[in-house]
């Protein structure tokens, strides 16, 4: 049999730069209470959100992804031509065809990029980061731009008080490239398709969640995934400087942190609470939180960061990486 030459990759990868984008329009809890039966205290108590950002009608997922991608390239000190692959984790493109990634690559000036969307819902960014790292290690890609981007306001019933208070719009990006030392740990990922009916599109139009079921799953099953990611990286829970769970609900975030601390994570571990001012932006929430926390001085270069995403599918993924 003919033997085929194989691409040659690299031994290790890291995040070279990050960037994010949020729409200008701030929507407060009081704004929402004008169009549905809710109020500021109720929302803060249930989900921990103070305000969120909604995109305008003509501000598209692709537009947000392009801006976040540009900022990540600038942060890495790279040109579009330095990247050859663009992955856009998302679950809210207006239609399945065309995908976002090809357009995003073109508008960024990444010529003839390998470009694809990745739908693992709110776990999308962690899935994408893992795939990007593996593409580089396998030699399929040189540098990869991963951009979690969502326009969830397109798929939320604006007067559904269970969901309209939670979801929001935005994008967050990371440039991944080769590294002398391993700075992205192995992924711990999986799915629970038996729970598929707990998050779905009602009438193929609007997100519906079985709130209690999802809350129970997220608060009990995700901390073990995070612990698997820590172990896969050869670390202990006490090594984690920063925890960034998908920003689904502040109470879920806190429940995950509590379980990790019970397993040895430090009391002074910084825990992302970006949901307070960003809402739940699905696959954008982790890179958005990372970018905001770095800007606020809560994450510093070389910090050991644990990210874990979880959502519809149900799907989940987590990994440890070193902050750029």
């Amino acid at each position, binding site marked *: 049999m003919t033997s085929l030459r194989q691409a040659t990759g690299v031994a290790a990868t890291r995040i070279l730069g990050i960037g994010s984008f949020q729409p200008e329009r701030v929507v407060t809890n009081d704004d929402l209470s004008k169009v549905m039966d809710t109020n500021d205290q109720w929302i803060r*108590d249930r989900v921990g959100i103070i305000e969120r950002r909604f995109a305008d009608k003509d501000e598209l997922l692709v537009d947000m992804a392009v801006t976040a991608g540009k900022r990540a390239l600038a942060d890495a000190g790279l040109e579009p031509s330095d990247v050859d692959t663009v992955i856009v984790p998302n679950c809210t493109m207006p239609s399945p065809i065309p995908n976002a990634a090809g357009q995003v690559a073109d508008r960024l000036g990444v010529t003839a990029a390998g470009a694809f969307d990745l739908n693992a819902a709110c776990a999308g960014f962690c899935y994408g980061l893992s795939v990007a790292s593996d593409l580089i290690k396998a030699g399929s890609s040189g540098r990869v731009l991963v951009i979690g981007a969502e326009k969830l306001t397109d798929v939320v019933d604006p007067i559904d008080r269970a969901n309209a208070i939670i979801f929001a719009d935005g994008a967050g990006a990371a440039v991944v490239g080769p590294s002398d030392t391993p700075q992205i740990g192995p992924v711990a990922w999986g799915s629970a398709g038996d729970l598929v009916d707990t998050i779905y599109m009602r009438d193929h139009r609007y997100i519906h969640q079985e709130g209690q079921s999802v809350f*129970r799953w997220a*608060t009990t099953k995700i901390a073990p995934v995070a612990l698997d990611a820590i172990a896969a990286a050869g670390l202990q829970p006490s090594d984690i400087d920063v925890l960034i769970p998908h920003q689904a609900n502040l*109470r879920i975030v806190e*429940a995950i942190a509590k379980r990790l601390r019970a397993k040895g994570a430090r009391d002074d571990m910084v825990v992302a609470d970006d949901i307070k001012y960003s809402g739940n932006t699905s696959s954008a929430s982790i890179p958005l939180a990372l970018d905001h926390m770095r800007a606020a001085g809560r994450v510093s270069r070389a910090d050991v960061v644990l990210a874990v995403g979880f959502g519809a599918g149900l799907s989940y993924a987590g990994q440890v990486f070193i902050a750029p």
Partner: protein
Amino acid sequence: MADKQLTEQDIVAGLAEIVEEVAGVAQDEVTKEKSFVDDLDIDSLSMVEIAVQAEDKFGVKIPDDELANLKTVGDAVTYVAKNS
């Protein structure tokens, strides 16, 4: 705890500990006639946390559809007594 026969008093006391930890309600407030939502001001997500802890403590399964039927502390006590 699941191995021996639980008295009603054991279950109320155990639930009261959980309710205090999850929702910050004083243990002596947690009595059988109290409604979780109306009297103890416990929301649907805290109910899930209480159920998860009660499962561990009493060795029972409390699925979400059963949880909806547990309106009062007394309902929960009866459920645990029957299923543990």
